[in-house]
């Protein structure tokens, strides 16, 4: 259990998808102008990445890995060269399905969170989480924890930045620094602050 908690804390804070690996930068910058938008996107991302990382783990273990197709009578087959394409396909498909379900059964939720779902297919943080799961050889349980906490960490970062940008509204930086420049600097300071969590383990 402690192992999972340590993994979660590490993924949310010190190995934060955006502040340590720069993943999901585009929507991070584009959707952090308002706290409400940021919160919706954060929730949707957390949900999708909690779902897709374990799903892609199953895909890897039972289809893509060398010898993974032994259950289908093809023990010699190694399809790992297709992994990139199938991982992104899973994410795109899951997004589409979730969007349809939410739209059909929970229109209120769709209005707040659902509209962000199409954005998430192209969110590097989600695909990145899958790639890290693949590269670091996580177990199924670990991939579940990692999927959730990488999304949650990303969400935490974007909500925090949205709050900070609201305050920046009242500041008056030099004109060329306005917008992207000052946001980048702010993110840099956030990254430094998050590094303070280094060293927490259970």
């Amino acid at each position, binding site marked *: 259990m402690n192992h999972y908690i340590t993994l979660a804390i590490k993924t949310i804070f010190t190995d934060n998808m955006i*502040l*340590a*690996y*720069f*993943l*999901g*930068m*585009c929507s991070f*910058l*584009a959707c952090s102008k308002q706290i409400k938008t940021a919160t919706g996107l954060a929730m949707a991302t957390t949900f999708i990445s909690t779902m897709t990382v374990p799903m892609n783990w199953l895909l890897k273990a039972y289809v893509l890995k060398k010898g993974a197709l032994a259950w289908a009578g093809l023990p010699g087959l190694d399809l790992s*060269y*297709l992994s*990139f*394409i199938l991982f*992104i396909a899973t994410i*795109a498909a899951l997004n589409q399905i979730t969007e349809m379900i939410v739209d059909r059964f929970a229109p209120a939720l769709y209005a707040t969170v659902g509209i962000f779902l199409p954005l998430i*297919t*192209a*969110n*590097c*943080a989600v*695909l*990145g989480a899958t*790639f*890290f799961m693949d*590269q670091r050889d996580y177990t199924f349980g670990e991939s579940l924890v990692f999927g959730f906490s990488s999304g949650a960490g990303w969400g935490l970062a974007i909500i925090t930045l949205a709050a900070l940008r609201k305050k920046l*509204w009242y500041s008056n930086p*030099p*004109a*060329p*620094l*306005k*917008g*992207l*420049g*000052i*946001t*980048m*600097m702010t*993110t*840099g*300071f956030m*990254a*430094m602050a998050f*590094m303070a969590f280094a060293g927490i383990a259970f």
Partner: protein
Amino acid sequence: MSLFGKKERLIVIDGLWNKNPISFLVMGICSALAVTVKMQTALIMALGTTFVLSFGCMAVALIRNYIPSNIRIIVQILVVSVLVIMVDQVLRAFFFDLSKQISVFIGLIITNTLVLGRTEGYAMNNPPWPSFLDGLGNALGYSSFLLMISALREIFGSGTFFGFPVVPHFFYQAGYINNSIMVLAPGAFFLLGALVCIHRMITGHREEH
């Protein structure tokens, strides 16, 4: 029609400087910043992105009249993924050590919004050759930012350039130490912010709140 007329040159220069994708469109920095600690990885990443972006644009432009519009995004993703997998496979075979470090980030070129932005925004409506140049120009503009950040990070963070020591020994003896913030993530954010600021000072581009 000439292959390198004034119009064609303009397409490349637009991407490279006038409408630099990072400074203007705020696109595609996700997959790349993480590999800017060292020049070597950044260079490979830049080459990979350039290859995928220019040929991806060309391939999409070639088949643009046949793509059914309701599945066009997924077709573009497919074309890009195929090129990305090719890059990754070649790296795995010939540059194994590098590939171990950057394979994840090479894979993430698939979701690089810059790539999808160019294929959807330009290549879907233009012939192959201008699309290729547009992709190339944007990729070069993107790579130049990447390599600049990486050069600064490696020189100030590790005192090396492409792995060769560049900070003279007597600097260290005089008490100079490498700035480890450059090796860490915040350094990249600060540098990117500063570079964007400088680029906008020169080009005069402003962003409204």
